[in-house]
């Protein structure tokens, strides 16, 4: 059952209408203040939106038109907040048992122990939260959130207060728990890499509005608007003018004419924004120049390059466009084999399929 969320709220501003697929991990990504946490809190019932409807399948949690709002405690959710919100005076076991008040008192401890084991924190039953490491606290919070067998698991930047190695382990645990229990997971994060690793769906949020949402791969590689491209931190953001001739769309970008994908829905004559992922910019081998008409060859000069681990990011100045910087990302050995260096002339291909026209300015 999908979780449908249609809400409007004033402070913090929220205005969105989205259908979140059941049983998937959905990452909600956006800059600080974009309303990510507020969205989660509205779904949990911790804030009451000015108007809207939230429903899991046919089960309405909020329907302001009917003046109805289920209290948080009656919504089948698990919530892990940024600092976990563990009860500081209760042991790990008692923290989890607090989520099990619907069970007879005699069964709670055993079930709580099972939840702790599921979250890989067995044996720490009697520890207080402050006696646990950050990673252990996160696991206890996860065990507590999962104890009620929630249909929707809400995670608010749950990995932000643990160190890198713990974070990697917790990623695996989340994937494992999700595979085992299959709740719908809403993961708030500002880390795109984290979203790409964990989520099957991605929802880009800005100023309380959804900029784009869909399958993670699609959103990451094919933003539809300039705003989405900016949120995804895509460096190659340019403008060109589109013309259509014999059913083929082409774009004029400075002195260059680039063929566009067949199904480009941009009005001829319109100035349009476009982007291309740095990994999709194809560097021509120095010993073998470009073949074919459709490969959109562009000559450029290397302005500078930076090596990041096994990757090299080169900024290129395309011929005739002294102010543009085309980012190219290649592996280190490719850069070395082609002798990439500052000031060197290269040819790259901007393949038609890799060019993504964007709506908006």
């Amino acid at each position, binding site marked *: 059952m999908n979780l449908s969320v249609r809400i409007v709220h004033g402070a913090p501003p929220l205005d969105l209408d989205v259908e979140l697929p059941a049983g998937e991990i959905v990452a909600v990504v956006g800059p600080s203040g974009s309303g990510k946490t507020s969205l989660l809190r509205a779904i949990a019932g911790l804030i009451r939106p000015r108007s809207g409807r939230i429903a899991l399948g046919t089960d309405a949690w909020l329907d302001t038109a009917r003046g109805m709002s289920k209290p948080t405690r009656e919504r089948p959710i698990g919530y892990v907040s940024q600092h976990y919100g563990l*009860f500081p005076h209760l042991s790990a076991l008692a923290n989890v048992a607090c989520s099990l008040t619907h069970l007879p008192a005699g069964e709670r401890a055993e079930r709580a122990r099972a939840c702790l084991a599921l979250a890989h924190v067995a044996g720490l039953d009697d520890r207080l939260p402050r006696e646990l490491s950050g990673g252990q606290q996160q696991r206890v919070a996860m065990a507590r959130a999962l104890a009620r067998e929630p249909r929707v698991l809400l995670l608010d930047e749950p990995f932000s207060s643990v160190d890198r190695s713990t974070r990697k382990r917790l990623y695996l645990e989340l994937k494992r728990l999700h595979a085992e229990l299959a709740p719908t997971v809403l993961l708030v994060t500002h880390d795109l890499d984290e979203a790409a690793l964990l989520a099957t769906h991605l929802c880009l949020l800005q100023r309380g509005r959804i900029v784009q949402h869909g399958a993670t791969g699609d959103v990451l590689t094919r933003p539809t608007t300039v705003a989405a491209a900016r949120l995804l931190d895509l460096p190659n953001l340019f403008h060109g003018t589109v013309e259509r001739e014999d059913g083929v769309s082409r774009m004029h970008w400075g002195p260059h004419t680039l063929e566009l994908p067949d199904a480009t829905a941009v009005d001829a004559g319109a100035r349009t924004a476009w982007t291309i992922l740095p990994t999709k910019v194809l560097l021509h081998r120095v010993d073998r120049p470009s073949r074919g008409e459709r490969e959109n060859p562009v000559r450029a000069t290397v302005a500078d390059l930076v090596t990041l681990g096994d990757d090299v990011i080169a900024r290129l100045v395309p011929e005739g466009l002294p102010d543009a910087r085309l980012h190219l990302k290649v592996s280190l050995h490719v850069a070395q084999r082609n002798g990439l260096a500052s000031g060197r002339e290269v040819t790259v291909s901007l393949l038609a399929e890799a060019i993504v026209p964007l709506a908006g300015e």
Partner: protein
Amino acid sequence: MDWTALRLSLALAAWTLAILVPLGIVAGRWLANTRSRSRPWLEALTALPLVLPPTVVGFYLLVALGAQSPLGDAFARVFGAPLAFSFAGLVVASVIVNIPFAVQPLQRAFAAIPHEVREAAQCCGLSRWQAFLRIELPLAWPGVLSAAVLTFAHTLGEFGVVLMVGGSIPGETKTIAIAIYDRVQAFDTTAAGTMALALLVVSFVTVALSFVLSDRWLRSERR
């Protein structure tokens, strides 16, 4: 040594505690959580007994509890005795005078409970009552303890308001603080000294006990 006066003071302190601590928990928790614009005004009102001279508080209480006031009149009709210059009147006065000593530590204690913890209780499916008993009250426990100790000790030592509202009727309104003053006026320094020492010991034991309890609480947190 006026044992009646000591017993009376202890009884007054016990009644004040029994009435004020539950009320203080409700009021302190409300003040800690409310977003009402009236909050600063209500906070000022609860702090008022702290800054007013006891004679001013005592005067207004005397007016409010007197036979001409609606409260005094109603009390006299129901119980057949006046509220002013009675033990019951003293309890009412003591509760009002001690409001800041009870409400302020409780408000601070409830306000110190992180928002996230409070919300986590809701997300765990706890009812309001369960969340209050299992989460909020245990976390506010040091505040409850300090409210109780401050109220108890302050009631034992209250002088001005008690004299204004209760007079000095032996066995009814003559608390140990009044009895000490009475003995000093009569140049009976031995009796005054004994009672002063008794008050000092009781107060010390009360405060020490609160420290012991609070220490034990910190240790028991480990369970």
